[in-house]
């Protein structure tokens, strides 16, 4: 006697599990231009590195003699894999069975994803396509018991994962309910423009509850969710989403106890870009290209922008200085003059929390005219969200380097400087309680009105006061560490990043405050 029969049975079940929802369901899925979860995982991770967890978890039906009649694998695939040689946990719903709505074994594996990432202290990648529970229950038979009152809080591990390891997610098909909630419980999320929609509830539920008739794309397509910040980025297709996740992970440590990986850098630290001497127009009404400045200062091709279509007056992302990963934050004066809007402040707060969580130094290029004003800004509670960003900056413990590129005004500018930060200014820097244009109109209202030529008087006053906002008096008063030739910015920042290296190990471990969606 040996265990041959049982061993064969294991092999048979493994094979059955790999068939997922069956040939027909897979063909239907492919016909819609979407990959299966196993194909997605294969494309994300390095060749032959998948180590599956619970490959034969699922629902088995037996005949009266105890022989297996049929087997439905769990509709969540989970395991370890490697991305660029680094171990991660990866998982996702299998849409070819029950449309990704969790089966009992599928739900167990899905919930286990965070726990196993926390246990092994390695990044977690979730590739989502599926819906939440069904009123029929996870068994589909409506007979399962509700969970006990003393069950562990379901979302605790989701929150803990976010304060322990990098979590990156993608929406690759329709994602609704629980998977949608988990999609956004991440440090970086991306959705496929071709194949994904994100829905708190789908069209049928919306039509029933709200009487609103909308397609999935109208309710939750990329145009909606990249602009409102539900996801950080939109990418053209599934492969592009996976490439963005790999890029994000390349900047991240494995967990909060480790330093972000420093890579070798062949871009000279003292590379000087001549065009920086003239990139800021002398005419203060004219905008400039902040993204060009970022790409010029950071290591060549290292800038990875997150949240480009959301809170667009603020630019946030990751990059490298002499190989060291850094968080990157700047204003985009081409969008609402770069002012701090409610959504821009929310984006900035999440960005700072990400950097604090993973001990990434922040480089901030400042051109902040102040909080956005006007009736829409008031309706959006800009002052509250903006102050939240300001206080978040004040509470950070990571090193900051802020470069005053042009404007730095009001309460909002305080969000762009960390405690004990290194501060440089370009000759184009202006700072003060508020930009002269608005300030003059208010403070000199009577004087302007009484002048023979009010318009002329207003311009004279603006010019006089603009001169006072020059960076030279600030540099004289040690209000900045240095006033620099813009061409020296990269060199100065590379020196700074080298100076702060010894400070980073002491910051490792759980952050005092961590990131929330």
């Amino acid at each position, binding site marked *: 006697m040996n265990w041959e029969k049982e061993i064969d049975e294991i092999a048979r079940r493994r094979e059955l599990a790999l068939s997922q929802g069956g040939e027909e369901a897979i063909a239907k899925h492919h016909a819609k231009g979407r990959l299966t979860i196993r194909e997605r995982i294969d494309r994300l991770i390095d060749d032959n590195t998948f180590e599956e967890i619970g490959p034969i978890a699922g629902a088995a039906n037996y005949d009266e003699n105890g022989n297996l009649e049929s087997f439905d694998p769990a509709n969540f695939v989970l395991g370890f894999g490697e991305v660029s040689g680094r171990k991660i946990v990866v998982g996702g719903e299998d849409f070819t069975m029950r449309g990704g709505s969790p089966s009992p074994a599928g739900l167990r594996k899905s919930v286990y994803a965070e726990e196993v990432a926390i246990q092994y202290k390695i990044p977690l990648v979730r590739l989502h396509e599926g819906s939440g529970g069904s009123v029929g229950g996870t068994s589909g038979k409506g007979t399962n018991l509700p969970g006990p009152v003393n069950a562990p809080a379901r979302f605790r591990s989701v929150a803990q994962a976010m304060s322990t390891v990098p979590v990156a997610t993608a929406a690759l098909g329709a994602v609704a309910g629980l998977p949608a909630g988990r999609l956004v419980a991440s440090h970086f999320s991306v959705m496929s423009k071709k194949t994904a929609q994100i829905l708190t509830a789908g069209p049928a539920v919306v039509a029933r509850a709200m009487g609103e008739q909308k397609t999935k794309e109208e309710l939750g397509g990329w145009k909606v969710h990249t602009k409102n910040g539900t996801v950080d980025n939109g990418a053209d297709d599934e492969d592009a989403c996976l490439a963005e996740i790999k890029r994000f992970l390349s900047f991240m440590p494995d967990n909060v106890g480790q330093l972000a990986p420093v890579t070798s850098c062949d871009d000279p630290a003292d590379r000087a870009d001549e065009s920086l001497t003239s990139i800021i127009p002398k005419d203060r*009404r*004219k*905008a400039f290209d902040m993204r060009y400045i970022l790409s010029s200062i950071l290591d060549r091709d290292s800038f990875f922008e997150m949240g480009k279509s959301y809170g667009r007056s603020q630019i946030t992302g990751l990059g490298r200085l002499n190989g060291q990963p850094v968080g990157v934050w700047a204003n985009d*004066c081409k*969008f609402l*003059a770069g002012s701090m809007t409610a959504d821009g402040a929310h984006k900035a707060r999440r960005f700072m929390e990400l950097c604090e969580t993973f001990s990434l130094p922040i480089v901030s290029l400042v051109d902040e005219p102040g909080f956005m*004003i006007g009736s829409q800004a008031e309706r959006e509670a800009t002052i509250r969200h903006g102050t939240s960003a300001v206080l978040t900056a004040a509470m950070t413990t990571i090193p900051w380097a802020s470069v005053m590129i042009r404007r730095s005004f009001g309460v909002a500018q305080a969000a762009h400087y960390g405690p004990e930060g290194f501060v440089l200014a370009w000759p184009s820097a202006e700072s003060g309680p508020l930009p002269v244009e608005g300030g003059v109109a208010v403070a000199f209202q009577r004087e302007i009105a009484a002048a023979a030529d009010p318009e002329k008087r207003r311009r004279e006053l603006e010019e006089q006061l603009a001169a006072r906002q020059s960076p030279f008096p600030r540099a004289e008063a040690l209000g900045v560490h240095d006033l620099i030739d813009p061409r020296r910015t990269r060199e100065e920042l590379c020196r700074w990043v080298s100076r702060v290296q010894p400070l980073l190990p002491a910051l490792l471990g759980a952050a005092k405050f961590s990131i929330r969606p």
Partner: protein
Amino acid sequence: MTKIELETGGSVWKLLTKPGDLVEEGDILFILEVMKMEVPYESPVNGKVTAVHISEGDFVEEDQLALEIAVRKPV
């Protein structure tokens, strides 16, 4: 047909095109003033302006349709 929609609210400071104008990719179509900054809108295509829905001095809103351009086919 390429539609030029506004990315933010603001006021139309300078309108530099009218229906019938031929434009090249990169030509400035109009300039908004937003929070005291000039925001130029460039043509994303080579083509002919078929409709202009804004006028100088207008206060405009985000997502508002500003201009339509018929794309010229490459020769």
